[in-house]
């Protein structure tokens, strides 16, 4: 049996594991490469669980998360990445906006 991606109490989120990406660049690429239906499905599945996710993760020091908790943390950051797409733009990105890949993050 393969190892779970997330902690036991969040096993219902396993189908979302592909969104648990470590860097802003990777999460942004995933958002840009997904259809709006895929983004919406991710958002709809994770948002109702976020209070529980953050309450759980707040018990750990932010800089010392165990592996499964770290993946759950990256998953939560992917929700922040797609939030503007779902809540403001209703599309992965606005059609006439500047290409996000030209913004080079210095914090990675």
């Amino acid at each position: 049996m393969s190892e779970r991606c997330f902690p036991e109490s969040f096993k219902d989120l396993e189908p979302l594991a592909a969104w648990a990406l470590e860097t802003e660049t990777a999460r942004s690429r995933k958002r840009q490469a997904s259809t709006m239906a895929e983004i919406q499905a991710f958002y709809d599945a994770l948002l109702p669980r976020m209070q529980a996710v953050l309450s759980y993760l707040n018990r750990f020091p932010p800089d010392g998360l165990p592996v499964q908790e770290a993946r759950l943390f990256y998953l939560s950051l992917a929700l922040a990445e797609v939030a503007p797409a779902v809540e403001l733009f209703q599309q992965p990105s606005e059609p006439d906006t500047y290409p996000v890949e030209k913004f080079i993050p210095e914090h990675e």
Partner: protein
Amino acid sequence: MAAVAAPSLHTETKQKRWHDLYPELGTHPLSVDRFTSPTYFERERECIFRRTWLMVAREEEFRKPGDYLMRDLPVANTSLLLVRGKDQRIRAFHNVCSHRLNKLVWNRTGNCQVFSCKFHGWSYNTEGRLTFVPDEDQFFDLNKEHLGLTPVTTDTWEGFVFVNLAPTPQETLPEYLGELGEGLQGYPFSTYAATRYAWRVEVQANWKVVQDAFQETYHVGVLHRRSLPDSFTSKDNPYSHSFAYKLYKNHRRLSAYGNPAHQPTPVEQLAMQFGPSINTRDWVLEELPAGVNPERSPYWSTDANSIFPNLVLIVFHGTYITHQFWPLAADRTLWEARTYYPQPQNVGQRFSQEYSKILTRDIFLEDASTVEATQSVLASGAKQHYTLQDHELLIRHTHKVIDDWIQGSNGHRGVNP
């Protein structure tokens, strides 16, 4: 929710024109050759960027002695080496070896006690002194005391490291920043600098086209209609009029309106449980330094402080942003956009920062989209002028100050047009 009365200062702006307070600026359209002319660009380089104080780093980038930062400054035809010495002082040097003038340091950051040139091995300490020359005996009357790195005047304000490339700057940094600098003292710049999210982007546009996009709020209700549908606009203030503008000799500020009835989205509500975002309005007046929301308006959201020539410092409650616009050519700019947050104490706070950071980035993408498009048609000759309205006062002031520096009428030696 109770109806919110229109802000008094905002009401006043309906009755008066901000331009009336600054009649010397005029109300004429602005000629556009300043955005395309290579000659004008060379004058900016010579008369402004080689003579004014330029922000190049934050103190937090130099934690230990030997921590250094290399910064290429093509606008001044140089590269800088900034390094913290054993005496804790941060010094700046031209990044040029004294022997055959090779660029000394090539890595962007690191920690080093001895900087050795990779050409012939001349070595310098963190104070810029030449400490070792291989095969020294073969030189003629070599005096190592006189062959240190060429220093650049540097000083720090509120943790921001500035340099001035003039051989003898005409003003100290505190004199240069003046009243605007004094008013911002006490804002927690260092606390918020604990977590910095920064992007670099090379845009195909004149540096002033890019900078002007951050010196007015007139565009917010249109360009940012999706990303900021109700944060800086409301039924009472549909054109996001800023409620105050202040012009200094070189610098300038606007104080932006925030809609108290902003409705956070579901993820934003979640994020706001843990930390501030650019849409947070729960500031306490007594905690703001005198120069932040100087009008003490209950409708304050943020101040955009434009520090001449190329820094826009945008302060919010709980976070701040710096934009810097480094000219590369008349039609190319390196834009450095940085956002600053406190050290997150838990994962929830880190999540709230991510929400605010990504929203901010997506707003910047909207800003970036127009500046390249503008530059791409500016040179067509179709239009000779920019047309500015009252709430674009800061843009008018910027170009007046630039012209003054170039023409030498700002108390500095300029170049005859």
